[in-house]
């Protein structure tokens, strides 16, 4: 058997994938980082702040994005997906489908002229569809690589053979409609899966009114709404009437710890709802928050103290009692019907804005990727790790990290990522 390849493929460019890539690259192992979207950064880039330090999320992420982009040992494969895997640990052959960007990567300087002129308005996925982007776009301002992408599904040239205005305005002549999807073959010694998670759609829990009541939103929508670079420029208003909300309610465990939806605990919601309430209070000291919970799960370092700070300094009230039913009054104020278990009273309370702590769910294409890679998923479609070595997948040479294997917060994803990097490197040292 020949020497194992000193090269690792990392699938997914969120914080877990980035950390794993950087660790490996730093020890002089070559990394192919595969990202499906147009920019790396993942979910962490969408968050406003992070608990328990309340650091600005993108501020602490951005240096890592830049490092990843510039590291000589890391090759970024953007708009790419894994299509096929063969070979064995130490020497895998991977087929990657790299979608056309329709932009000459070396030419685009992200001047934004094309965006200004593009006539198409498309729901902005990065901003949780809370605003529109154009058909030529960059995921987010600090996105890396910081160049444009043309969204083929919506571009007028591709849909109606018209327009091409971006081509006309681009001074660098960076637009290239002739680009085609490419298939790339990689040869790597081991593989790390870091594909992250999707968000549960609470529309299916009809009694909570999401989708019917404008002032019932999800936590990730809230992150975008309150984020300085989000659709409201950081000035939180409620969707129905653009008024400043003063009374907020967070409902924990929406779609989790629930046999009818997802039986598991989503791990982070108790903490992130507290964080979101704190940020809201920092924006407007008149805001009062109620957080409805089943168990307050705060076992991490400094987490209990964080919750206590929420109570003492941020006007947060924790109410033990899960909410089954939300109604709406004629001012479009959500009315929450709940039991305050500490008194056993059932009450109705009016709020200005209700935020649903929707659970982390497996990526919808997890099944497909698991099949391609030949690794097992658990009963819920998370990638299955070993009980005491959770970074080890069911297949030798393939490792897991972050929320693709179980819901987890950022520090645990980073630990997982470094852990997976160590295991992935171990394989390369053999043979």
């Amino acid at each position, binding site marked *: 058997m020949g020497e194992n390849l000193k090269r690792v493929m990392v699938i997914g460019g969120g914080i877990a994938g980035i950390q794993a890539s950087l660790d490996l690259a730093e020890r002089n192992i070559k990394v192919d980082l595969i990202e499906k979207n147009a920019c790396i950064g993942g979910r962490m880039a969408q968050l406003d702040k992070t608990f328990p330090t309340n650091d600005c999320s993108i501020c602490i992420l951005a240096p890592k994005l830049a490092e990843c982009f510039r590291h000589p040992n890391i090759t970024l494969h953007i708009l790419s997906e894994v299509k096929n895997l063969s070979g064995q640990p130490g020497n895998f052959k991977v087929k990657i489908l790299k979608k056309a960007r329709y932009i000459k990567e070396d030419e685009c300087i992200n001047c934004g002229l094309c965006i200004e002129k593009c006539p198409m308005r498309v729901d902005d996925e990065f901003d949780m569809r809370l605003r529109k982007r154009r058909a030529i776009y960059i995921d987010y301002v600090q996105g*890396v*690589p*910081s160049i444009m992408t043309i969204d083929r599904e919506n571009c007028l040239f591709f849909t109606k053979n018209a327009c091409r205005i971006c081509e006309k305005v681009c001074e660098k002549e960076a637009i290239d409609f002739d680009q085609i999807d490419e298939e790339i073959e990689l040869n790597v010694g081991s593989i790390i899966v870091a594909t992250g998670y999707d968000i549960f759609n609470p529309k299916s829990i009809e009694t909570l009114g999401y989708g019917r009541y404008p002032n019932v939103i999800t936590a990730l929508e809230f992150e975008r709404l309150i984020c300085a670079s989000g659709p409201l420029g950081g000035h939180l208003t409620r969707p129905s009437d653009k008024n400043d909300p003063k009374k907020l309610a967070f409902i924990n465990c929406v779609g989790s710890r629930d046999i009818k939806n997802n039986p598991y605990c989503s*791990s982070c919601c108790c903490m992130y709802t507290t964080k979101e309430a704190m940020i809201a209070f920092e924006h407007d000291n008149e805001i009062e928050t109620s957080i409805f919970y089943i168990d307050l799960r705060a076992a991490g370092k400094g987490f209990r103290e964080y919750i206590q700070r929420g109570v003492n300094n941020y006007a947060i009230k924790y109410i*033990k009692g899960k909410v089954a039913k939300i109604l709406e009054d004629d001012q479009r104020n959500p009315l929450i019907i709940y039991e305050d278990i*500490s008194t056993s009273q059932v009450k109705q309370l009016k709020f200005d804005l209700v935020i649903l702590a929707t659970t982390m769910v497996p990526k919808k294409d997890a099944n497909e990727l698991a099949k391609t890679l030949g690794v097992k998923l658990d009963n819920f479609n998370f990638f299955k790790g070993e009980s005491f070595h959770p970074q080890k997948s069911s297949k030798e040479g393939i490792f897991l990290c972050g929320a693709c294997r179980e819901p*987890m917060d950022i520090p645990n994803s980073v630990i997982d990522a*470094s852990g997976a990097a160590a*295991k992935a490197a171990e394989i390369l040292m053999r043979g």
Partner: protein
Amino acid sequence: MSDDDIRIGVFICHCGTNIGGVLDISELTEYAKTLPNVEYSAANLYTCSEVGLNEIRENIKEQNLNRVIVASCSPRTHEPLFRSTCQEAGLNPYLFEMVNIRDQDSWVHMKEPEKGTEKAKDLIRMGVYKAALLESLEKMQVSVIPSAIVIGGGIAGMNAALTLANQNFEVSLIEKDSELGGLIRRLNKVYPTNEDASNLLEIRNLVENHKKINIHKSAIIEKIEGFVGNYKVIILQNKKTIEIEAGAIIVATGAIALSPEGYYDYNGKTIISQLELEEILKESEFSANNITMIQCVGCRNEERKYCSNICCMTALKNAILIKEQNPAANITIIFRDIQTQGVTYEEYYRKAREIGILFIKYLPEKPPIIKKDHIEVYNEFMNQVIGVPYDLVVLSMPLIANEDSEQLAKMLKVPLEENNFFLEAHVKLRPVDFATDGVFVCGSAHWPADISESISQSNAAVSRASTIISKDMLEVEGSTAEVDTDLCVGCEACIKICPYSAISKDEETDIVVVNKVVCKGCGVCGASCPQNAITIHHFTSDQLIAEIVTYGGGE
């Protein structure tokens, strides 16, 4: 360099609305242009984005800038990025200066934007005056010893040693006990698989027989010297002093269970601790029928505010084991919040309910009271006091920091948090790193962790340590202290105060010498030197005085 040659570029960051939403950025940009030596001034939406960085690079070339100032956020997170950007454009990275107009200005003066803008002008002006005096500095190169030391031979330490050794690194594993294994040796079964704890100890053989692992049992650490890439740990083993050298150190010293003495009428017979229950289940016949467990004993209170993370799962495990062995047993867990995050653990909690474990929630202000044959507890779910019959009470005690962690922390020059667990470099993004380069932490030394978490963290620590010991040479900080040999009188004030032990005395000349590799440029020596003999590069007296003078309105 005469004043005429200095060409400063000032880049002012909006940071979205973090800064731009409060301060008047265009006013600041215009203001910067009026300052001496400023050749160029511009605003960016995010200076740290690739667009912003490109603008720095391009203007260094086009405007021929030889000093760069970014007025934005914290150097803690962003200085390395901007420095390397300057370097890429051919500028010495130490000719870069960062001004924090966010954390110390726009965030704290959100409600008074005009005053905030005035303050930002002061801060930028101070930066400009300092920048004019900046000097080029060179980073030091140091060689690296390609091996690691792991302190602690519990599951985290053993796994770390093995993973490192499997990657062909030499490892020294230091254990104070006479055998490896740590806390797991006292456990009966382990969750969530409920297999024998001894299965997890199989790793011991692999560790003990690995030719790359050097094990030092019954060893006491006497002294730790050195710096990243070149650590020296002196241990006392069998009355012999041994010196071990390595490029990196992993701290895996674990934690201990809080003693139940003095809690809830603990008597060691009918009222015992969870760890004692483990030992009974492991070694002897178990006969109790009505078993009540009380959670959060001695924690989540004023004395110890934290949640110990592993006790809920441990209680669930033992409850399940007893119930499966004796389905007629009546087991009650009196708890505050059940901590079973994630997929497997929540499933485990459901299983405990499924087989009939009873759960009662209590409030800290109304804790359970143990009577002769029953416990009285205010049940929050019922809003009233409920009696629970028992013949055995089991107290779930938290994991607490090792007694010797304070001493070890001092030797390693790393911080502890308020509960004496080791404090990492950054909670979010550097969870197993210390601020001190080349030292890492994993397992319960960092925070109460179960087996799976400890192993994950120990893998992570290995990965982080490998980024150092896989290199032949390392670059270290160039901004360090320098002693003026003409002024130094050898009083040793600096030696006593240096937190990194970077200063020593030259026996021949009787004056002090700074080890530039160890020096972090923190500056305490300079501040304490009665002779003003120490200069901290990049923070020289001239530079700081220039800042102060211009702040006060002088020239």
